[in-house]
């Protein structure tokens, strides 16, 4: 009896051990499948997105508020800081990962990421191209029409790979009070900015006529771009020759580092956007280009003493043309997800850019990119008219994966000229030399 009982106990222990191992194994396999499977195991009614903080939060709100019910899908949005998003996307695409169905990109990332994106027209049936501003469609097209094409994209048929989600472009902020005090009209050209700025710097104590982001690298290049493009034309020829070291380029650089600097606050070579915004807000700076995101501070009566005097105009024209720098955020479809997922992602995008959705997007605080959205909502924001004007003349930064390196080289030379370490002519020659070296090294 005891022996039998022992055997029974042993059998029972073995059974329970076996049951435990089976159960644990099943749970482990399930957990592992969950880890490995990721989004590929989700059904087509769930579309996953990776967006950046700021505008990404508005995109997510619009998806939840309007798009989900219109399309009949659930969206799962991951909001990441700007720099992390880029890193995440490059890592994800290099391993052909399918975690995110739709990804948000700053437009300079397009040359790096386009090869990993599905053509939008293959998955969006009825795109309202007549209403979407051409510049925002072009910037999402790869290779970008009318721009120099990098070697790895030459001969490729241009395809729309990214749809605009944020119609950003530089706008020009002007303090109307300071301008009227010196009897100046709102500026149409860069010469107007300089003329009015001289008077303000000379006649009004504590105020300067202009301010650029003079800090080395990206800030100064971003600040200079609208000046250079409007006075010296494109930065590169179609064959990728740096084209800002000719006389027009030197004149443009000289206007920036000599003339505009002379009407800027002391120490402008270390300014980034926070200093420019704060100067505009308190009236110590009369005019400067800004991204639309900067307007929230300038129009806030608690934060900007000059909020009532701030007005917005399109970025001024140069000797050749108006060329505000374009900075759109785009939404693209991951090329490595299944066809049905791509179609679901296409439906989400189609709904997102629809007129109805965009009307709500503006109410949420979004930056529009459709003609009809601008026209119907012009009075919703005091800067919409300026943005609408700027966006239709906007120029993208050169379309190359090497843009970060190029803008750093350009920015270092401009910054050196801004602090009088070299002349504008020397700065442009140095920029040409270092930028050509970067291009040569990459077989351009």
């Amino acid at each position, binding site marked *: 009896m005891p022996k039998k009982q022992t055997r029974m106990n042993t059998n029972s222990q073995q059974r329970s051990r076996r049951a435990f191992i089976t159960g644990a194994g099943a749970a482990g396999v399930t957990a592992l499948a969950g880890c490995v499977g990721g989004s590929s195991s989700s059904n087509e009614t769930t579309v996953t997105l990776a967006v950046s903080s700021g505008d990404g939060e508005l995109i997510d709100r619009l998806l939840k508020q309007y798009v989900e019910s219109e399309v009949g899908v659930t969206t799962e949005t991951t909001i990441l800081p700007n*720099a992390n998003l*880029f*890193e995440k996307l*490059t890592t994800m695409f*290099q391993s052909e990962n399918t975690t995110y169905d739709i990804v948000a990109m700053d437009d300079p990332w397009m*040359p*790096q*990421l386009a*090869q990993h994106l599905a053509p939008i027209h293959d998955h969006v049936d009825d795109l309202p191209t007549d209403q979407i501003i051409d510049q925002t469609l072009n910037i999402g097209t790869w290779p970008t029409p009318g721009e120099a094409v990098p070697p*790895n994209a030459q001969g490729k048929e241009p395809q729309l790979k990214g749809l605009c989600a944020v119609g950003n472009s530089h706008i020009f902020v002007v303090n109307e009070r300071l301008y009227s005090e010196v009897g100046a009209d709102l500026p149409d050209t860069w010469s107007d900015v300089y003329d009015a700025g001289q008077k303000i710097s000379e006649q009004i104590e504590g105020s300067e006529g202009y301010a650029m982001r*003079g*800090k*080395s*690298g*990206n*800030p*100064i290049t971003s600040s200079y771009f609208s000046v250079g493009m409007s006075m010296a034309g494109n930065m590169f020829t179609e064959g990728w020759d740096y084209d800002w070291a000719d006389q027009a380029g030197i004149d443009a650089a000289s206007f920036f580092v000599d003339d505009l600097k002379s009407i800027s*606050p*002391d*120490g*402008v*070579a*270390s300014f*980034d956007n926070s*200093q420019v915004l704060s100067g505009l807000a308190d009236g110590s700076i009369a005019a400067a280009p800004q991204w639309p995101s900067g307007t929230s501070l300038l129009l806030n009566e608690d934060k900007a003493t000059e909020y009532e005097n701030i007005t917005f105009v399109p970025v001024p024209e140069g000797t050749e043309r108006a060329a505000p720098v374009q900075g759109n955020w785009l939404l693209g479809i991951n090329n490595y997800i299944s066809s049905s997922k791509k179609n679901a992602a296409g439906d989400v995008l189609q709904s997102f850019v629809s007129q109805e959705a965009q009307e709500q997007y503006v109410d949420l605080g979004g930056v529009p990119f459709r003609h009809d959205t601008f026209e119907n909502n012009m009075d919703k924001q005091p800067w919409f008219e300026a943005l609408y004007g700027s966006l239709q003349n906007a120029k993208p930064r050169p379309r190359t*994966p*090497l843009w*970060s*390196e190029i803008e*750093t080289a350009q*920015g*270092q030379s401009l*910054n*050196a000229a*801004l*602090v009088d*370490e*070299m002349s504008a002519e020397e700065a442009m020659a140095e920029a040409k030399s270092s930028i050509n070296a970067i291009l040569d090294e990459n077989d351009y």
Partner: protein
Amino acid sequence: MAHRIESADGREAAILWLEDHLRWILTLPALGLLAAFFVYPIGRALMLSMYEFSTSGKQFVGVANYAEILTAGAFWHSLWVTGKFMLFAVSFEVVLGIGIAFVLNGHVRFRGLVQTIGIVPLVISPTVVALLWQLMYQNGGVMDFIVGPLTNGPVPWLSDPSIALYSLVLPDVWQMTPLVTLIVLAGLQSVPDHVEEAAMIDGAGRIRRLIDVTLPYIKELIVLVLILRVVGTMRVFAKVFVLTRGGPAKSTEVVSMAMYREAFAYGNYGRASTMALLLLVIALGITYAFARLSEVEF
């Protein structure tokens, strides 16, 4: 009976084995952590440094990244700038820190309070320190007010290439001097009173006592703090990024700034890893040299 004896022998053998290997078993978690957080990252960086990264993936290039960086003027320039920053920052921090430690080691009223206040800069993130100093450096800001009697107007703290690097040294000195003070003060307080008294009875003056008694006692700590600060200043990043981004005219282009750009702006983790490893080798070299020259063993 035989079974029981075998079982007892086995248990004894297991206990003996455990006793023999206990030190290794107890060390394993620490070794695991060391491997995870020290050996693996260095190994990974070494591996990455052998690759060229592009949008289509990565390509093995062997030691090409090392050759390219070591033959490029930009790296040597940033190394030179880092060296200058290190020299000025460490010199001020160590001299000031030791000086303050000696003062606090005397009979100072409210020493505890002073020590507590002194720790505050240490616990602030370098980014926040940089933002605070950005405000202080702005036109008409606190720094202009302080040096006002000596200058004719606002000082271009961050926009003059001949000044900008020193304007980065100041926040570092402000933040890190308390570290030197705390460590050296701890050393000073461990010098036995009777040794000082014996030297005094033997007729040693204040300077002689300092050289022959106090300094030998705290030599190890001074070398330690020197090494900590040399390595710390070689890695300076947040202050440069916030205040100057390497400008004006590349005058503050430290190695970590160039590394950041390579990795996070250009996406070339290979070249960034190469720079990081080169910096590591230099830091190890300096540390070894300090230890050898001072004849200190840690």
